[in-house]
């Protein structure tokens, strides 16, 4: 049972992640942009953040930077349609990288492992 913040500009995905992660027993909060995410973190301090990289306005990587400035201890999982960002060094500060898939098994397992490690 943890507080998970899902940041994605796609409403359907926010709905899916909320439903699935709630089903796993997590308390899920959502944000539709980097700006919203920072506000949410500031207010509710989640245990972990699932962050989409490519979003309108402030993109995920800038958001990641801001989150790190705000609180370096919050683990961040980058979640995106691109596997290409895997080799982009700006993603190094993230704790994990999971490519989007309709099968959420990998994402769920990654969340569990990171939470256990903390």
């Amino acid at each position, binding site marked *: 049972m943890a507080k998970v913040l899902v940041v994605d500009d796609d409403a359907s995905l926010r709905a*899916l992640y909320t439903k699935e992660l709630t089903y796993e027993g997590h308390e899920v909060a959502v944000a539709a942009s980097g700006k919203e995410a920072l506000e949410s973190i500031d207010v509710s301090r989640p245990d972990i953040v699932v962050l989409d990289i490519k979003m309108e306005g402030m993109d995920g990587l800038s958001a990641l930077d801001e989150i790190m400035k705000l609180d370096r201890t919050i683990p961040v999982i980058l979640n995106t*349609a*691109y*596997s*290409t960002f895997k080799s982009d060094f700006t993603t190094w500060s993230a*704790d994990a*990288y999971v490519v*989007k898939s*309709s099968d959420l098994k990998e994402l769920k397992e*990654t969340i569990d492992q990171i939470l256990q490690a903390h």
Partner: protein
Amino acid sequence: MGTETDRTAELEARSNHLEQSNQRMRLLLEMLSLVQGADDLEATLRIILTCVTSGYSLGFNRAFLFLLDKGGKTLRGSLAVGPMSVEEAQEIWKNIEERAQGLEDTVSASSAGGLEGDRELTEMVRDIRISVGDGASLLDTCLSDGTPIVITDLSAVSESDVLRRLGSSSFVCAPIVTGGHPIGVVVADNLITGRAPAEEQVNLLRMLGNQVGEIVTHASHHDDIERRLRELSTLNEVCKGILSTTDLETDLGLIVRISAQVLNAHGAALRLVEDDTGALVTQALYGETPDEEASGEGAQEIAERVARDGEPLLMGSGSSGSESDTGDVHTRNLICVPLTKAERVIGTLTVFGRGETDSFGSGGFGEDDLRFLSVLGGQAAIAIENAKLFSSLRKTQQRIRELHKHLLRSERLAALGELSSQVAHEIRNPLTAIGGFARSIERRMDSDDPERDSIETIIKETERLERILTEQLCFAKISPPEFNSEDINEVIRETVNLFTERIESRHANLEMNLAEAMPAMSIDAGKMKQVLVNLVQNAVEGILDGGNIRITSNRLDRVAEIRVANDGPPIPPEILDRLFVPFATTKASGTGLGLAIASEIIYEHGGTIDVTSDAESGTVFLISLPLTLDGDRRRGPIDRRSVMNDRRRFGRVP
């Protein structure tokens, strides 16, 4: 009265004698005028000797001619005229006397007939060589004294004198002189009739020797010039020939063949200095006799000496004392010249064993031949260098073409990647939502729910779409390979294991033949597996039910070869050409990227991938991978970041 009768008889005899002499003088003049019209040295000499043996003229049985060589050190037997036996003599003389009306007829009859005796005698006399200045032979004495020698008793001839080989006990030697210098000796005898040479005959022979000297010298010069001209024109042809081909192998073959043919030799060998080792290696041979046998000293050693000194070498009779007089001069003669380009020796050209010569008198190579071969060698060197340059140019061009082809493909892939990353985002998000919710619904469904099939279909199809997207994105940015020391055979085995079930379900027959002594290779095992999975999958899909699949690995000198073959229906040529081009798929279910990615991966490994397909041998994919990983082999830049990816996956990077 008796005295008167005697005087009359004496006068008559004198008159007869004068008439005979007169006739002989006329014949001598006739001979001289005939000789003027002869077109080469041999014809000239034949006319002279025919005159010596003609009953109309000097009337000897046999005549032999020896000429001084150019150096003036050796008398060589050149030509002989005469029968071998009494029977032949009678036959010939009868025929000639019946038909011939004069010297001209006799000459044309004897040269046109190509008499058996003449040929045999000539062969015998050409084997005779007499060194000048040591007085060992009467011929030598005759030459140096400049006066005729008449022998009527064989005891006056030394036991060792080669003249004894002529077989007659009485004969005349007369020098052939021009401008006060002797240039040869003519020997005449009466072996058949057994008559001692008459004084008259001796005098005439001396006159003849004095008269024909200049003619012989002219004819000999004429022959030289003719030969030189012939050689020049041959050389011209040869040079045109070898300079017009640009293929090295053809060139070398042409050079040795022509060298041997022009010099009338048994064979020729061409050696080249290897660029990397500096070793002199035989590259082309012509002729029946291997040149190793051509000389007492190993031909290879001779060639190496010539290459080292950069000086041509003539070995054979009449040259320096590097050989003895035993053995067959035909096989012992050898010329070796260096092939020099820009003062650098690039190889050697050896010509060995002169065959039966049609040129006059000489059985071995001479200075002229050496000069000729040297000039040819110079041209050959240019031709060889040209061919080498062309060959490297061709290789470079081919490399550029390959690079160009690769570049085109890469550009296409890059453009594709650009498109992919834009579209992927737009597609993957909704796809994730569709599939994700479908799974969510499926999880809550009863196992006997009538809609369960439908939801499972949605999940399955979503997965397929996602897989295609992943493959495309894989392409959009292919991560750099991670080389590790791996056993390629193990990668092959692992790959094949993945297909066990599918191979069984198709009743296929799998044959694996992996090289035992395959060294560890520097490869990206994961990527190599991706390539092999693709090829094996193609093979499994390519065969008919119950078909054959063969997978082999081979170790060659510098590369490892992996073949994945199947005996399914052949791939049509127009498709075969575009097999490695992105999206050129023929399969309904494929993305058209598998082989394009495979080819990209093999390229990164510094290897090549090729395919052949026909009805006889089926479809064969051939991968060649270099066995050593040189610096320039890694075409893709190594990205250290990719090494860190996995460590970063769980847990914070410090």
